[in-house]
């Protein structure tokens, strides 16, 4: 029994690869056209949301379908304080968005933490949908059509970084990347603390944790609130990136997608959700590559036709890849190349 958490890399090589990935993400935009930089920002935001959800799913064993609601709620908070006509600085909007999302998560958690398993999933879905319908059915946030907002100004310590228009997407990319890295680092440190160990204990066997004296209700509530406010950071980043809110970002689909990224990337590691988010976003683009390949002169006509078909069918490729992952890689993408046997036995089979 080592004192290290399961969710972090287990060897120096693992940490090296993680660092290499972070460096690659940091230098990639310098060589990519703006379109891919913006796509990259979307992927990083999805990664932030998925990573915040991993606090619940991977670390504590709580599967929530209301998580996306906190993300959307944060984006709407930005809309309410930073309207299109008067953009506010980020040092104001970010803490506020995180606080509102965290408060909502605290209130939802207060009621729903008592349930577990499938029931927890459905209660959180119910509360998430309530938040969704508040924005969908009332005029509070522009109704079903959504609304434009003033993108928060990137500023800190009194200085505002106002980039020339053409470079703004690059600046936003780095803001997202820095937040994602901070979130990962913060969570990695947290998981090594006694609190983090307690979360994992709850995931493996909650009854035993309670029996040895842990107040598992409070611990889970803290985790739920923390995850909600981190989802708020991701939602704030979405508003900063897109400058637009609509009810869709609050709906349960958002949670399902984040869950999908976690499952695709791997439940058993903190970096899995990031891998899953990047892979899922990249997959949509990769289909276009197939179309390009089909145009090459030496490709037989039948294969070219198949490639063209797949190139046009993004969801088909996505579906087939997910199917292949769930059948062949029970531990997700992060499990590739890892020889360590899974002794955690997370959940019952």
């Amino acid at each position, binding site marked *: 029994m080592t004192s290290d958490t399961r969710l972090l890399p287990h060897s120096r090589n693992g940490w090296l690869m993680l660092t290499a990935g972070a460096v690659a993400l940091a230098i990639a935009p310098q060589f990519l056209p703006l379109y891919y930089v913006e796509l990259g920002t979307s992927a990083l935001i999805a990664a932030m949301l998925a990573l915040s959800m991993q606090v619940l799913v991977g670390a504590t064993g709580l*599967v929530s379908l209301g998580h996306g609601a906190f993300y959307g709620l944060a984006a709407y908070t930005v809309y309410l304080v930073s309207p299109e006509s008067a953009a506010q600085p980020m040092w104001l909007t970010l803490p506020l968005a995180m606080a509102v999302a965290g408060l909502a998560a605290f209130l939802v958690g207060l009621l729903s933490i*008592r349930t577990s398993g499938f029931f927890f999933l459905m209660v959180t*879905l119910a509360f998430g949908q309530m938040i969704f*319908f508040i924005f969908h059915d009332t005029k509070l946030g522009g109704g079903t059509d959504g609304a434009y907002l003033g993108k928060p100004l990137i500023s800190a310590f009194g200085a505002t970084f106002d980039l020339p228009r053409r470079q703004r997407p690059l600046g936003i990319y780095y803001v997202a990347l820095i937040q994602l890295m901070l979130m990962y680092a913060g969570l990695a440190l947290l998981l090594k603390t006694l609190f983090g160990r307690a979360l994992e204990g709850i995931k493996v066997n909650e009854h035993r944790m309670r029996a040895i004296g842990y107040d598992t209700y409070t611990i889970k509530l803290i985790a739920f609130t923390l995850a909600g406010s981190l989802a708020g950071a991701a939602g704030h980043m979405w508003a900063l990136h897109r400058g637009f809110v609509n009810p869709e970002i609050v709906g349960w689909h958002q949670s399902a997608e984040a869950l999908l990224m976690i*499952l695709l990337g791997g439940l058993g590691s903190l970096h899995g959700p990031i891998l899953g988010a990047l892979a899922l976003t990249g997959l949509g683009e990769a289909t276009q590559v197939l179309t390009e390949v089909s145009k090459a002169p030496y490709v037989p006509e039948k294969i070219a036709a198949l490639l063209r078909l797949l190139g046009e069918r993004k969801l088909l490729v996505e579906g087939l890849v*997910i199917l292949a992952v*769930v059948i062949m890689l029970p531990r997700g993408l992060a499990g590739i190349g890892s020889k360590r046997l899974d002794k955690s036995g997370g959940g019952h*089979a």
Partner: protein
Amino acid sequence: MSLPSFLAQSLNGLQYGLLLFLISSGLTLIFGVLGVINLAHGSLYMVGAYVAFVVARATGSLWLALPVAVLSGIVLGSLLERFLFRFFYKREHLDQVLLTFALILLFEEGRSLSVGNDFYSVPIPQALNFSIPIVEGFSYAAYRFVVIGVCLALAAALFLWIERSKMGAIIRAAAEKPEMVDALGIDPRRVHLTVFAVGTALALTAGALNAPLSSVYPNMGDNLLIISFVVVVIGGLGSVTGAFWSALLIGMIDTMGKAYAPAVAGLAIYVLMAGVLLWRPSGLFGQRA
């Protein structure tokens, strides 16, 4: 609120509730007996609607659509169970979520490849294309009565099958104590195959029945999937009787809400579900654990 409009909304609510029952009874059986969270259940409803559309377009009438939908449901359900789901009973719930999510995407693409992404209406059969006068100044579409009738007949058949037949008794036993069913030497594979095929056929039938009322369009099963889960949870997991009453309740609340209180209609059923789950987690009709 006038009497005719209230009557119309009540009948609409009843019809919607019965339709929800066809979808959620399959969902609750599959969850209760097989332990599978089938997110693709809404897609099966969509498949049924498109089967009706394709049959109606090819033959020019809707009469054949219902039997074709039932048959294709049984075949599709059996194939899915035999070649896919069977290997996932022992896997974690989250793997099933991933699997069935992939199936949603594949069903949608299959639909898009074979029929396209356009919105199609499905004509009501000529013989039923009239309204029945109920009270002064109010008449109700005959086809909606037919849907209500067919749903009630199917519900009755389902109850009879589950309460009176030997297979039904095994299914009830399997939903409650699967270990006992194994211990008695009953081959669980046949039970699983039957339940999955029946559940699938019910979803396809619902889609086919409702196609003339809802028209057919991409992602049409999406919204119904979540509502059906709400029905299943309120009714109690695995309980067909529970699914029946809770489907009627949800159908009524949703329809009445949309007609008379649109600002809170969407909210209402989720408030109800959260309330039920917190007050009585095993559902209104489920047995207390």
